[in-house]
């Protein structure tokens, strides 16, 4: 289940798979997949089981089947680390790419991509430095405001802590829309997230299992918090 927001005059759908769908332009936006992170750990002698890449690609497949995007934009940190570059991961990504040959795909480079490098040419991904303008929006990795466009970015891996009556507490990944910048949750599973505290006027949408829900700020300090 997804939810809609209007940002800079554009209607965007927030997907529970932790992605944004821009129907008017048929663009799917995905931030921080960190492909090859588990492989980088393994290469450096830490045991992390395989399966995270395949799982992330399968989640992308679900989105592609449902939305039929014309283009997929990755908002940075497509690859995690140089040590994570390995034939297995690239083969899986290339096979996935080939299955969706009709879809344009582009990586707006992030800080990790700079060190990890672009994926090999045969994978078939355009790579650019951000921010890149796209209508009234700008796509970037770093959530820095841009002069004349609303920025959609990643990098932060945001999540919020929610509190409720009877000392209820829950920590959930979120979409965070400020006055000039909107931040997407990290798409990758093995990425973790960072707690953010929204400012007055920010819109927060949390991913609660298969739903995306808007949440408000607590007006006073929560009981027991």
């Amino acid at each position, binding site marked *: 289940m997804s939810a809609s927001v209007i940002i800079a005059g554009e209607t965007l759908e927030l997907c529970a798979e932790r992605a944004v769908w821009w129907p008017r332009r048929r663009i799917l936006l995905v931030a921080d997949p960190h492909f090859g*992170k*588990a*492989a*980088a*750990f*393994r*290469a*450096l*002698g*830490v*045991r*992390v*089981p*395989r*399966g*995270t890449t395949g*799982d992330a690609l399968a989640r992308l497949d679900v989105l592609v089947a449902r939305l039929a995007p014309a283009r997929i934009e990755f908002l940075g940190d497509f690859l*995690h*680390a140089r*040590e994570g570059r*390995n034939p*297995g991961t690239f083969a899986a990504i290339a096979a996935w790419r080939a299955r969706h040959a009709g879809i344009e795909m582009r990586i707006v480079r992030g800080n990790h991509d700079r*060190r990890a490098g672009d994926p090999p040419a045969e994978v078939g991904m355009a790579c650019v430095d951000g921010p890149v303008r796209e209508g009234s929006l700008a796509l970037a990795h770093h959530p820095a405001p841009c002069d004349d466009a609303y920025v959609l970015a990643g990098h932060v891996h945001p999540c*919020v*802590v*929610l*509190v*409720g*009556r*009877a*000392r*209820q*507490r*829950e920590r*959930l990944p979120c979409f965070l829309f400020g006055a000039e910048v909107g931040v997407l949750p990290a798409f990758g*599973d*093995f*990425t*973790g997230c960072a707690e953010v*505290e*929204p400012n007055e006027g920010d819109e*927060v949408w*949390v991913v*609660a*299992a298969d*739903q995306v*829900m808007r*949440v*408000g*700020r*607590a*007006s*006073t*300090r*929560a*009981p*027991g*918090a």
Partner: protein
Amino acid sequence: MTDLSPAIRWFEQNGWTPLEFQRAVWGAYLGGESGLVHAATGTGKTLAAWWGPLLEWMAETGHAGTASEARPRVKRAAAPPLRVLWITPLRALAADTIESLAAPVHDLGLPWTLETRTGDTKPGMRARQSKRLPTALVTTPESLTLLLTRPEARELFGELRAVVVDEWHELMGTKRGVQTELALARIRTLAPRARTWGLSATIGNLDAARDALLGVGPTAKRGPIVRGVERKSVVVDALIPPVIERFPWAGHLGTTMVPQVVAAIAEAESTIVFTNTRSQTEIWYQAILAERPDWAGTIALHHGSLDRKTRDWVENAMRDGSLRCVVATSSLDLGVDFTPVDRVLQIGSPKGVARLLQRAGRSGHRPGGVSRVTCVPTNALELLEVAAVRDGMESGAIEARLQVERPLDVLAQHLVTVALGGGFVASELLAEVRSTRAYAALTDEEWEWALEFVGSGGESLRSYPEYARLERENGRYVLTDREQARRHRMSIGTIVSDAQIVVQYLRGGVLGSVEESFVARLTPGMRFFFAGTPLEFVRVRDMRVWVRRAPNTKGAIPRWMGSRLPLSDELAHLLRRRLQEAAEGVYRGPELEALRPLLELQRKWSAIPRADELLIERVHSRDGWHLFVFPLEGRLVHEGLAALVAYRMSRLVPISFAMSSNDWGIELLSPDEPPLEAALEAGLLSPDRLIDDLPASLNAAEMAKRQFREIARVAGLVFPGLPRSGKTARQLQASSGLFFDVFQRYDPDNLLLAQAHREVLERQLERSRLGAALQRLSVARVVVTAPKRVTPMAFPLLVDRTRNKVSSEKLADRIKRMQVALERAAG
């Protein structure tokens, strides 16, 4: 028969006579035996263990032991190679131990070198030691394990004759103890001539302590347990508050007792004030100083996060009697002998008989001195615990140390250690590992799994491409990758804490260290107290917290992770007995007399539970619906019970609980009314179906996930925060929670996950106690009351902030009623 006379002569020269047990230990050691000595602190255990190896060397070399007046400096190269390893649990004790060991060596003019090797050892000394070890080395379990990673480990220990493990009761029953067991097994293989002697306080299971120390199995020798000097008489009393507050405030400071504490300190010559946490140490130091500003300079504080120089200064000042009072944590529980101390205060409940005995023993070292310990309750109900602990001392109910069963994370770490230290043949190492008590029951499957986990190949590595850690060379497992070797050496150990950040003055002086999570909450200009000093936070740079002195105003106190001690089983039992008496109207002793009004109030509003009853109070407040349940079994058992009770009720209706537990009971808080009657009818506390319900409830409360934090670190999945670590280290950072989720999803059969569950059950929840508690509760008469207000027994639970949760509601339904927390903004 080796001649004991040099020892006897040395004792006589110092005006002493060797005690019976000391002679017994010398004789047993010289006769080739290993063993365990238990005695009170400060009764000569050190000399009992030390003289055996000295006498042996003198007999071997014919050294007469007559010192020349001028002690010649012993040349490193001329001294005998490593003969004695002395293992101490606290590196703070190492220097002190060397001092006691050095006395006879100097007096007899033996050409031995004595040195320490701990995390505090300076690089220059490390370099000298890596060329040649001293004749006797005082070290910690971690530093010993580090020695075992050296490729020439076998040669290092070639001449080793004695391994002495000091304060063995402190190590036993912890993963550090298991790490020590593995190291001792390694030494038994590398140095067959070496004998092992443990020094311990008296505990409830000395046989198990001996087995863990000396190993088990067909080749193990069962050495003697030598009983030393018994505890001198101990007096336990309490400072009784002049007015028993109606509502005891739990867990917090309880500094209302400061005037009485100050009066007690003023009466004595020299006092140690023990607290249960480092934060409390800082709080009480400030409170005492505020009451008596004229004591500035004569009182001090001591805890494990202070800079070593500060700790050394405090310890020396304590010894020479120039301090009136030290406020300390368990950092002063052990070893160091402070003869001038004549009074010990214990802030808050001691939570166990053995622990209070240990602390009491820090006083009264003067001839004819009586050990006296005075408990200072921080809430009224703690008076009951004081009365119970005295009952325990009178009846000799000293707690046993629980054992840790075959932790695979420690084993995985050990395999890498041995692979570095010259490598191993699998079958040989397996036999060695199984000779320890901790791994005696290790299954073949678990062994194979651990081997495979550290990357030696194997079938199931299919899920782990690109991964390899150990290699095989001619049938031996070795580790040659230098980067991995470096990382392993840096992460040896089983003590898990948050990354520590050094606190330093802008002008240069180092104060100690605080946890990263505390630093995250600081903003420039903010004031906080640390090392007893008001400080202003300036900035964080180069992995340091830079501060300047602040005028003495209010400020935050850092908190350190670390579990609160639970009430011991013995004490819980004694507590229930005291409550039963109160329920019958019997109030014995000054503590109970003082508590009488409060307990009468408890009875009037609700009930006082008898030993065969289970009291449940249900209260409705603005916060929601509270259920207070009082099994009186200690916090560890209560955490498990809370999860179980919440889980069972949440199966009946969709509901969410926030739970808290303390030593007296549990609180379940929910936004909707919980189905208590239906749940009781369905067998809320029944031991039936426990085998399914318990793991399910622990999962629901995410308890295994928290336990995984420690396991991930020990097994080498997560690295401790390293200053100036390069890009590689940063890319290898992921939280243990993330690892837990990824394993659970992609490798659910991972045995480290199984270990996390097992540890929660056995260690965290003390499964045997939990089972026994459920047996007791299932036949108990359930008394449900509905007090209008929160009762004295329930109040401490209400204010406890650490909570677990269990929910059977749909996440989206819960979220509809929640809001984003703004904790930092609100302060």
